[in-house]
């Protein structure tokens, strides 16, 4: 396993979540593309990203971090090293690659910064790709600042259902910015879930 000793039985504060949202999330695509370039080390990019967030989330203070992007890259690097140390079978190429890793780590290369960015277009596509009701609930929550309870009242749905929509929205957005990398948003046919079928059924009822 990750081998890190970080344990926190509590979700992070809003303040820290905001810091991550502003300082780390926008660099995540660059971080991922850099990690993918180290594929020969046979680590799982998603694992490393989650471990990296865990370290950034549980760090006592982030006040002294001047350059969050470089810092996040360094944390990811330390995660990889630790994983390699703990894995039983170290791929032969890893030895050489750790050397390159170190030289690259000193300064994340400019191409990484330019190529993979947290683009507005990509974010909008991700939001656009959300199922209609999920998006509606999400917008009411995030843009209008309504509570889940209030959204439930307005959409005439149970709070439980609203919570499912919110959860699904987060899940799809997270997926958009990890495994898919936002590349296949429109290509992937949406799988119909129970929630969505209900959406459709309701939409039909409303028409008549």
């Amino acid at each position, binding site marked *: 396993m990750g081998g890190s000793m970080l344990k926190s039985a509590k*979700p992070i504060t809003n303040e820290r979540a905001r810091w991550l949202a502003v300082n780390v999330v926008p660099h995540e695509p660059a971080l991922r593309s850099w990690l993918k370039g180290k594929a020969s080390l046979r680590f799982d990019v*998603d694992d490393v*990203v989650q471990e990296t967030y865990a370290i950034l989330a549980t760090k006592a203070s982030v006040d002294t971090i001047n350059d969050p992007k470089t810092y996040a890259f360094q944390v990811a690097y330390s995660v990889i090293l630790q994983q390699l140390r703990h894995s039983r079978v170290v791929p032969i190429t890893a030895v050489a690659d750790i050397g390159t890793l170190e030289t690259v780590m000193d300064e994340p290369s400019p191409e990484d910064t330019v190529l993979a960015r947290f*683009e507005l*277009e990509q974010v*909008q596509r991700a939001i656009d790709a959300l199922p209609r009701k999920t998006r509606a609930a999400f917008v009411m929550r*995030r843009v209008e600042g309504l509570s889940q309870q209030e959204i439930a009242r307005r959409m005439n749905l149970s709070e439980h259902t609203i919570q499912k929509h919110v959860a699904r929205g987060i899940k799809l957005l997270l997926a958009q910015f990890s495994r898919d990398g936002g590349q296949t948003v429109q290509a992937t046919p949406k799988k119909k879930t129970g929630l969505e079928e209900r959406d459709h059924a309701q939409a039909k009822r409303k028409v008549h």
Partner: protein
Amino acid sequence: MITHRPSAKSIDEAAARWVARLDGDALTADEEAALAAWLESDTRCVGALARAQAYFISPRLELAMRVLRRPPAPSVAKWGPLPRRAFLAGAAASALGAAVVIRRPPPAPGRRYVSEVGEVRRIPLPDGSQVTLNTDSVLEVTYSEQCRLVRLLRGEAYFEVAKNPDRPFVVQGPKAQARAVGTAYAVRLADEGGGMRVQVTSGRVAVELPPPAPPATAWQALERLWTPSTATNGTHVTANQEAEVRIGHGAAGAEEVQVSLRDVPSGALGRSLMWREGLLSFEGVTLAEAAAEFARYSRQKITVKGGPAQERISGLFAATDPAGFARAIAQGLRIKVKREGDVITLYK
């Protein structure tokens, strides 16, 4: 020990459910325990939950949702006569992922007025407003349906603006502009560097700076459009106040435009606007300062040598008669005056 290692994907899904749950009402004791147990089961859960929380409250996601929902409020677009539609079009373009270019309008050919050195001109404008153009000044007037635009290209002018809230009256300098709906104010440009002084005798004027450098990314453009502070960009100058626009350089060497505001006793304001009657009024200024002021109004230049330059003087003088001023000063301060061509020298 054989443990079942959950996939990153399944952890993300659980994290999404927890964030949605935490966003609802308070957790029950059982849920608290379940969450703690889940977080302790794998470090990746801690990271996934933090990441999900961060995405959930991401200001950029919120921004993107706002834009998809409706175009931004138009209150921000107020620089010069730029129609609001241009800004909205910019926002719409960015929503489509195109590059955002917010351009200042091309200088439409306006009517140009010039005053010679020593000349003070009164110019009636089509809407009933009056411009008094001070010495050695140039301005260009462009009236459109939305805006009465005056570009002050050199020197100083006093504006008595006919009230029309639907058609703001804007005096544009190189680095800042002064906007009014119905008021009287003077705008004077510094000789170089783009500095500007705005003095208001009645009503209210907003001194506005242009939008900063064109946004480098669509995010920047959107953030600017949505940030409330830019909507109130503008220092409001009311009667008996003056605003000074200064151009400085920041630590990184980038140009910084600053606006400072101060109260001016109405007597002092009236005195500094005596040029409208062709007069210059001084109240305790140094002789060097007075000489510099006279230099604006005449080809004849006064130079002051030595100590007398720092003598303080008061009085009312004809703006276009520096020789008469020099004689009066020489008499009052008991110093000498000589004239060689266009140069008048005051010395001890």
